[in-house]
Each structure stands twice: as C-alpha cells, then as structure tokens.
C-alpha cells in the first residue's frame, strides 16, 4: 500500500476509536504504533476530543498531512475493544490494505442493540437508581415510565440534531416536572429521589472519568475541553430541573 492509503487508513482507525469514546493517549499511541510498524517511526500525531492531525514524511522528505474532525462521541466499549485488538494485529502482522479494510468494515458493521433494548435499559437504570438513592418501590415503578418518556424525548431530539445543552435542559425539565406532578397527585412519596435516579441517565459519566486520565497523560487541552463539557451538562441538567420545579411549585404550593 502507498503512503496516502496508509495515512488514510490509520487516521480512520484513530477517528473511529475517538468516536467510540477512547482516551486521547490511546488514540495517539495507536496511530503512532501503526505508522511505526509500516516504517514511519518519526510520525507526528496530535489529537484533541474534536480533531486528529497526523503527519508523516515520505522518502523524499515530502510531508503528508491528514486532518479529521470529530462531532460528538459516545462510549461504545465493544467497538473500542475490537479496534484495539485490530491495532495490535496490524502492528504485529503488518497486513495489506484489503485485509485491514475488511476487518474494519466487519467491526463497524456489527449489529447494535435495538431501539427497544435501549429503551428498556434506560428505564431500568431510572428505576434501580431511584431505589438506590432511597426511593420507595412505588417511586421506582413510576420512575421506570418517566425513564421511557426521557428516552423517547432524547431520541426524538437526536433525530432533529438539537445541541446537547438544549437536550439536557428539556430532558431534565421533563423528568423533574413529571416526578413532582406524580408526588403532588399522591402517587409517589419522594420526588427528589426519583429526579436524582432518573437524571443519572444524563450525567456525563465518561467525561468525568476520562478527564483525570487525559490530564495525567499530558493532554491538558483535551482534559480542559472534557471538563468544560461535563460542567455544561451539569449546568443544563440543573437549569432544566430548576425551571420545572419552580414552575410546578407555583401550581402545587406546599411541596
């Protein structure tokens, strides 16, 4: 394979790793090792959560650069695992372009969990976290259905490509509103536990754990970007729930 194809395929693998929520140092290290395996030990790789830049120098000293932009990432553990194994395989065996393409297509084409599975487990997260934070069984039962509504709202907003800040505000307003309303009707007991439990679906888990690991690996810019991202999510959640609670308290005084 020629240098252009090599650059293209390694950048694509890195891009897919980053899109599946891998840490920055893993992405940079994978690309660097793959290029080193094909005879470019001097390759330069730079990555932040929103883009990757890779440069190699060919035999004549001519620099080749590839830049790829990333729009949003979501943790996909299985994909990171398989891409990681593919990288190890590439570094040890040095297969040709066709083989890499086939296995990459196989990884990207694997079937995902269906809509209903995702919906059921979003609802189940809400129900079990409500119990965990000290809610009663009645609360958890109602939280299950609020979780379903949250999932439907988020998937609808996702289809219209709304930004995530707005999604979080609307989602958390929906959750807080319904929880308070059911408590006001007397169906449930602890509306605060229900809100905390259901909103665990929106809490930026990956961002929080990856921030420290990125900063530790020397990627300060990536760490700061993720920190700001998770603060934005937290602000969105608090804003939405705050609006819904103060509005509903106006209609149902005494809660």
């Amino acid at each position, binding site marked *: 394979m020629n240098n252009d194809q090599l650059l293209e395929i390694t950048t694509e693998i890195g891009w897919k790793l980053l899109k599946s*929520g*891998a*840490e920055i140092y*893993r992405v940079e290290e994978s690309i660097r090792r793959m290029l080193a395996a094909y005879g470019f030990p001097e390759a330069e790789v730079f990555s932040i959560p929103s883009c990757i830049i890779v440069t190699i120098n060919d035999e004549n000293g001519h620099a080749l650069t590839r830049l790829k932009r990333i729009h949003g990432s979501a*943790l*996909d*553990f*299985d*994909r*990171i*695992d398989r891409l*990681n194994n593919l990288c190890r395989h590439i570094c040890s065996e040095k297969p040709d372009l066709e083989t890499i393409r086939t296995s990459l297509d196989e990884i990207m084409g*694997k079937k*995902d*969990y269906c809509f209903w*599975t*995702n919906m059921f*487990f*979003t609802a*189940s*997260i809400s129900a*079990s*976290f409500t*119990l*965990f*934070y000290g809610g009663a069984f009645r609360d958890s039962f109602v939280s299950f259905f609020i979780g379903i509504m949250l999932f439907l709202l988020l998937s609808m907003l996702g289809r219209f490509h709304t930004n995530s800040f707005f999604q979080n505000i609307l989602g958390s307003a929906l959750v807080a509103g319904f929880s308070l309303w059911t408590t006001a009707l007397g169906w449930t007991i602890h509306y*605060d536990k229900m*809100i*905390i*439990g259901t*909103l*665990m*679906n929106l*809490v930026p*888990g*990956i961002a*929080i*754990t*990856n*921030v*420290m*690991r990125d900063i*530790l690996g020397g990627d300060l810019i990536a760490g700061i970007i993720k920190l700001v991202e998770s603060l934005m999510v*937290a602000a969105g*959640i*608090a804003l939405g*729930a*705050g609006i819904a*609670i*103060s509005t509903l308290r106006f209609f149902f005084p005494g809660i």
Partner: protein
Amino acid sequence: MIENIPVFIYTFLACFSFCFIFKFHKLSHMIAAATGGMLSWVFYVACAPLGNDLAQYLISTIIVSAYAEVMARVFKAPVTGFLTIGILPLVPGGGIYYTMEYCVSGETSQFIETGIHTFAIAGALAIGVLVVSSLVRLFHMMRLYPRIKAKFVFLSKTLHQKKEK
C-alpha cells in the same frame, strides 16, 4: 452491613443496565463491570466507621480503580469501560440536585455549602482515579524498559569494579 444488602442488589442492577447503554456485548464483561459498581458501594458502606465521607469516597474510588485495572488485564480489554461503570454509584448526583434545589429556593448559605461539598466529592473521585492510574503507569514503565534497568546494573557493576581497583 446486612441491612444494606438490598441496596447492593440495586447498585448491581443499575450498573448492569448501564452496561447496555455503554454497548458492552459480552456477558462476562458486563458481569465484571457491574460487580465493580457494586464493590464501590460495598466499600463505601464498609468505610462508614471513618466518619468522613470524603475519605469514604476516596478509598472506594482507589479500590474500584484497582479492580478495573485488574479486570482490564484479565479480559485484555480497555480499562475505561470498567472504570466508568465502577465509579457510577459514587458520582454525586444527589449533591448536584440538592445544590440546584437550594439555589432555586433561595437558601444561599445552604447552596454554597452543598455546592462546595459536591465539588470536594468530585475532587476525591478524581484523585482516586489519578493515584491508581499513575501507579499502574509507573509499574508499566518499569516493566517496559528492562534495557534501562540493565544499564543501571551495568553501571553499578563498573563502579564497583573501579572501587575494587
């Protein structure tokens, strides 16, 4: 401890459900990750005699991060997934909510107190993760560069020889 067993089961269920959202595909990975989530809460409760919840958060984060590193080595899989699931029960969701609640109802002193406490919990989680991953990286480096070690041995030997002469 015994009265907390239902809570441990809820934690396990919650973490197991999160495995599907984070797209785990192998049952063994899911069970390992969800057990990590349960362990974090078990150790949080077990450290209750310390009487300081920041210490509780710190200790259980350190234990669960070490567990995640071990599981990553056992299954030859990235550590991020196990770590993210394992830390979930410790994430201060309640703290964020009550901070917002006090802000909305206008109790400023309570708002500031809860807000700072929530930040401290987040800091404890971050320090726990940081300690374990830097230790792991240190061990990894020590194993990765036997050549450097060999060089040190060689240097010390030559020094000894010079002294003997």
